[in-house]
């Protein structure tokens, strides 16, 4: 057998063996991975809504139980109506409600933003006044660990709590990430619309600011509803 045919054979066999190995690992581990991703989403929705203590470790069934008790997954249309079924006409976007004894405490929006290296995905929870942020959580990103990656840390996400998406005059302002500390960089009037930035990661902050603005604009119709009409009872939606 000539050398090149031998090499070719060896290469083919090696590739077959390694693809078999990888396929086996991929299919074998997939259920575990999917369960992790699913649980992680639930955990982050609850975290955004402030239903989980960030310092505490939760078992997966605990998370699932709290999620089922508290969170309802629904849809909202362009006019800000909250509907149960995705089957209706018009463009529908997902929304989660955090409910306690029929009272809607907060509503949670999925965040899908551009980041420096890849997508940033997470959840932003707003209180039932339609203006105050109840919490923020990130479950997927590809930012540099230690720099932009800090967006997944509690210190960064905690800064969102209590901030406003509307300005002093009541008009929509969105929420932005400042370059550096809010107290030093931002005039007093606007401080409620800014959170502290991450040093060394101003681009991540810039993209996330843009992403949050886009999402909040999309959900503005429903936020207006919350601000004006006080949709507070879950049973009224149903």
């Amino acid at each position: 057998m000539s050398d090149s045919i031998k090499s070719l054979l060896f290469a083919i066999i090696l590739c077959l063996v390694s693809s078999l190995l990888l396929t086996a690992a991929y299919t074998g581990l997939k259920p575990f991975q999917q369960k992790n991703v699913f649980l992680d989403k639930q955990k982050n929705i609850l975290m955004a809504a402030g239903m989980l203590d960030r310092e505490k470790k939760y078992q997966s069934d605990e998370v699932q139980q709290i999620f089922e008790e508290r969170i309802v997954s629904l849809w909202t249309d362009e006019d800000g109506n909250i509907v149960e079924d995705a089957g209706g006409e018009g463009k529908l976007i997902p929304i989660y409600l955090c409910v306690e004894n029929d009272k809607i405490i907060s509503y949670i929006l999925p965040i899908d933003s551009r980041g420096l290296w890849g997508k940033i995905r997470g959840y932003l929870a707003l209180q039932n006044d339609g203006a105050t942020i109840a919490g923020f959580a990130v479950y997927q990103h590809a930012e540099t660990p230690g720099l932009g990656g800090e967006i997944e840390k509690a210190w960064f996400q905690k800064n969102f709590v209590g901030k406003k998406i509307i300005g002093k005059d009541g008009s929509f302002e969105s929420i932005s990430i400042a370059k550096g500390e809010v107290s030093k960089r931002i005039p007093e009037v606007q401080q409620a619309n800014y959170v502290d930035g991450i040093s060394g990661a101003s681009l991540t902050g810039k993209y996330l600011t843009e992403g949050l603005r886009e999402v909040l604009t999309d959900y503005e119709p429903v936020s207006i509803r919350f601000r004006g009409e006080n949709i507070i009872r879950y049973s009224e939606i149903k």
Partner: protein
Amino acid sequence: MSESTDKLITTASEPVWKNNPISIQYLGICSALAVTVQMKTAIIMSLSLMFVVAFSNLTVSLLRSIIPRNIRILVELVIISTLVILADQVLRAFLYDISKQLSIFVGLIITNCIVMGRAETYALNNPPIQSFADGIGSGMGYGLVLTSAAFLRELFGSGSIMGYNVIPSSFYDAGYENMGLMLLAPGAFIIIGLFSWMQQTIMNK
């Protein structure tokens, strides 16, 4: 202790200090810059790399007599990438939080020159067990530099160790500030440079 275990220990300890992959051979610098902002990521990255080098060395060494010389680099690459993807998949299935933190860096072990370098210069010419020991040693040497650099960077850059704050807030009140340079890649360059200098000075005594 028997002679063969003695030899194994020598093989494994050589790349930890005397032939350190980063500070002596200057390989794998790129990942050393990227993951040393915090100690936790540095440690897990070192462990993942150790796993990959050890097993890629073992596999390459087992196959060394039948690997055709003209395509050996490609063969090494296939073996290494298979192992890296396996490690990544296992982390995702069982250590999801950690795999999320390391994000893209586990995948980037494929391009880490240490893995390829050890397969090419050591595993192709040495028996399997020896090669495995060499891989473990290289992983430890990599880990030594990474954790030392990460310790300094996290301490001076963020004022914490392993995520716990160690600089009291009274220091900050008195005007102490975290060093922003430490969080950026040039800070890592300087530290690794100093580490290498220090090591060479000690060794040349």
